[in-house]
């Protein structure tokens, strides 16, 4: 696996990783003579929920389309299932499900007819198709709306229909562009449940989002800004990368500046992030190993420890730090 920024990335995938389902290698993509993606590499392994996270206009959709072979890179290579993405054989195309950012089904067909059409494109026979459509309608809670014309559906229903269409042939790789954009939190949660369920079946989900906090729900995250991968890794690893370690909050009514300075000199403590009378936020190398030492040292100083907890800063903060640092 080639990482865009090896010094910043924290590889957490096992050494003997399986062959990637999606691999982009030093890809450069141009639009109107301007490079929108430059030197981007990533690898998505089977069973992962892989998130491409970044602000609007970062180039996430372009990367996704290149990964699917819908855009031809000006340089570098995109591979799906180990084969060039732009010349994927029919059998491998049948293993990909794609949910684009916009609604791309037929507005004058009903929900059921649209699913029927997509099932037909994937060569699913009528008997199996009926069962599969029934399942998906139930899963996406569209059963009562199956006879509605697609253009009469709400935006959320259209997203659900589009996702159902992408899942109808039970693809090994589901590629979803901004699945949760503009939908309510309940539906967003339902989508995530579905993505997790897909991953648990050993299938792969590659998606983009501009909701940075959704990174926490991924197995692996690539932060994209200005057409480059700013950082990548597991959510925990990215958080540690952003802060340089784990963040531990310690509360004690007697905690004063002298005590905080002593804690800062402990072996696993990197530095003091914030401190005020009775409370301190410390950056440690590993919260699991550092926390017992912190409690012990505080009590040895005659201070009563009221609460110690590992703090998980929001991914907004993580993202902001990483972008500021590396972009």
């Amino acid at each position, binding site marked *: 696996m080639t990482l865009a920024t090896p010094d910043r990335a924290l590889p957490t995938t096992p050494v003997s990783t399986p062959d990637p389902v999606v691999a982009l290698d030093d890809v450069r993509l141009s639009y109107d003579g301007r490079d929108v993606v430059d030197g981007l590499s990533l690898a998505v392994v089977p069973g992962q929920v892989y998130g491409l996270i970044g602000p609007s206009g970062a180039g996430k959709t372009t990367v996704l389309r290149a990964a699917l072979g*819908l*855009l031809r890179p000006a340089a570098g290579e995109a591979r799906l299932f180990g084969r060039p993405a732009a010349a994927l054989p*029919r059998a491998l195309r*049948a293993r990909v499900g794609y949910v684009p950012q916009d609604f791309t*089904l037929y507005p004058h067909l009903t929900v059921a007819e649209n699913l029927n059409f*997509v099932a037909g494109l994937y*060569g699913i026979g009528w008997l199996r198709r009926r069962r599969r459509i029934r399942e998906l309608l139930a899963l996406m809670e569209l059963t009562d709306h199956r006879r509605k014309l697609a253009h009469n559906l709400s935006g959320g229903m259209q997203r659900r229909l589009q996702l159902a269409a992408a899942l109808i042939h039970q693809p090994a790789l589901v590629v979803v562009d901004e699945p949760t954009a503009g939908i309510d939190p309940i539906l967003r949660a339902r989508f995530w449940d579905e993505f997790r369920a897909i991953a648990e079946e050993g299938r792969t989900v590659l998606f983009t989002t501009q909701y940075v906090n959704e990174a926490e729900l991924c197995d692996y995250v690539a932060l994209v800004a200005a057409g480059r991968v700013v950082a990548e890794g597991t959510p925990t690893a990215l958080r540690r990368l952003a802060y340089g370690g784990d963040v531990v909050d310690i509360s004690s009514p007697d905690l004063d500046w002298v005590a905080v300075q002593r804690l800062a000199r402990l072996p696993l403590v990197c530095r003091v992030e914030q401190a005020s009378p009775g409370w301190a936020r410390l950056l440690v190398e590993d919260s699991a190993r550092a926390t017992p030492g912190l409690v012990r040292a505080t009590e040895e100083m005659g201070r009563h420890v009221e609460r110690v907890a590992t703090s998980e800063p929001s991914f907004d903060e993580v993202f902001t730090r990483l972008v500021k640092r590396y972009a």
Partner: protein
Amino acid sequence: MLSRPIRAVAPASVSVGELFRQPWLLFIVIFGPFLILLAFVVGARVYRDFPTTIVVLPAQPAGPSSLQMNGKDLDNFLRVVDTTTDRDAALARLHRGEVKLVLELPPDPEAAIAKGQQAQINIYTNEIDPLANSFFTLFVESQIAELNREAIAKTAAQTKDTVGRLKGEVDRAATLLDGIENGSVQEQRQHLAEAATLLDQIDAGLTQVQQIAQLALGPAAANAAPLAELQRERDQVNRLRNDIRQLDAQLALAPSPQQAAQLRQDVGQLQQLLTQAQSANPTVLSAPFTAQVTNVAPYVPRGTDYFLPGVLALIVQHLALTLAAVSVARDRRLGVLDLYRLSPASAGEVLLGKYLGLIVMVALIAAAITGLAIIALGLPVLGGLPWLASALFVFVLTSLAYGFVIGLLTRSEETAIQLSMLALIASVAFGGLLAPLEQLSKPLLGVAYLLPVTAGKIVLEAVMFRGYFVSWVAPVVLVLLLLVALALSFRLFATELARR
């Protein structure tokens, strides 16, 4: 194993499904074209009305004459709305568009003819449409020729009267000549002198008739049959006069019975010629030739019915072409092409599916319109329904292929629709609907045959109204267009799906 047909049917279901989801659209595409056909049949007329005309009569007409015309004479071929002697007022009304023609009659046609001139009828029109102009010119010229013919007939009738009078005189001359053999030389010479005088009068009469006929028929008719007949009669009279002079010169020497017999024989021939001239029909003399047209076509459509296969072809082509062009352009706009690109369906399977859907739909519509036309308007299908179905199938498929090519060459639905409209205009202009194909120059004829409607119209006309192909050019062209357009559409669609 069934995956391929299943994949091909999927896009087909979209076309049919989308149409049936829009009942108004369905109504419009089926009944709309039929209503256009019906309106065309009911509302359009193949033949023009007689043009509305003001006849300007001479302010000071000549005396009664057989050649003098009035408004009533012209009512047979013009719709005379007014007669006047005020030419300027009539022309002012023409300028205001109140009438189509102003026709100014000559003051004294007989005097003009007597001077060896043609009597000129002035016709004024205020038309900017060149087709209408040509129509008026041809129409009026043909009607003036008819007036000429009527004038000749009148003259011939007059001539017939004169000939009757001449025949009486010739009969008298014959009686005189009969007396030559029985009388004395003195009496015989007197009879000959009287006969010669009569012959001079006959010659003068014939000369007068010949002059009138010559003027009436015009200089171009010098060798026309009536004039030639008159010339023969005059030659006969002159020969007879010569015979009489010779006989008179010889009477002193006592005429030989052979000479007298010869003289009598010549008079007999003259009598015979005049009898023939007297029995001649003036109408036949004025128009010795007539045409009897026998149409061997198995069916002659009434009026606008003739245009129905062409209009049908135009409607079906426009429908198929637009639906196919918009179908591809809309898929591109909706983003469905990405779905096709990523699906296991090949470009060929997807396009085949699109063809299937649209051909089912357009063929049904075409069949419905044609069926309604056949039943409601009573049109025949002399080639039989299988031939009609085959012709419609090939034509619809060709039009669809053209539509797909247009849709694949354009980037938006709007452009696709504009190109479809251009194809419609070109089809109306060059497809043999407005002007016969024979009137097109060769390069333009080539362009015309690139449009499916040109060959389609000819094929449908042949299948419906003839039952056989007069020429195999049109069917062969249609099949060639189909093959080329099909191949091109599949090639372009494969390129479109491979586009990255």
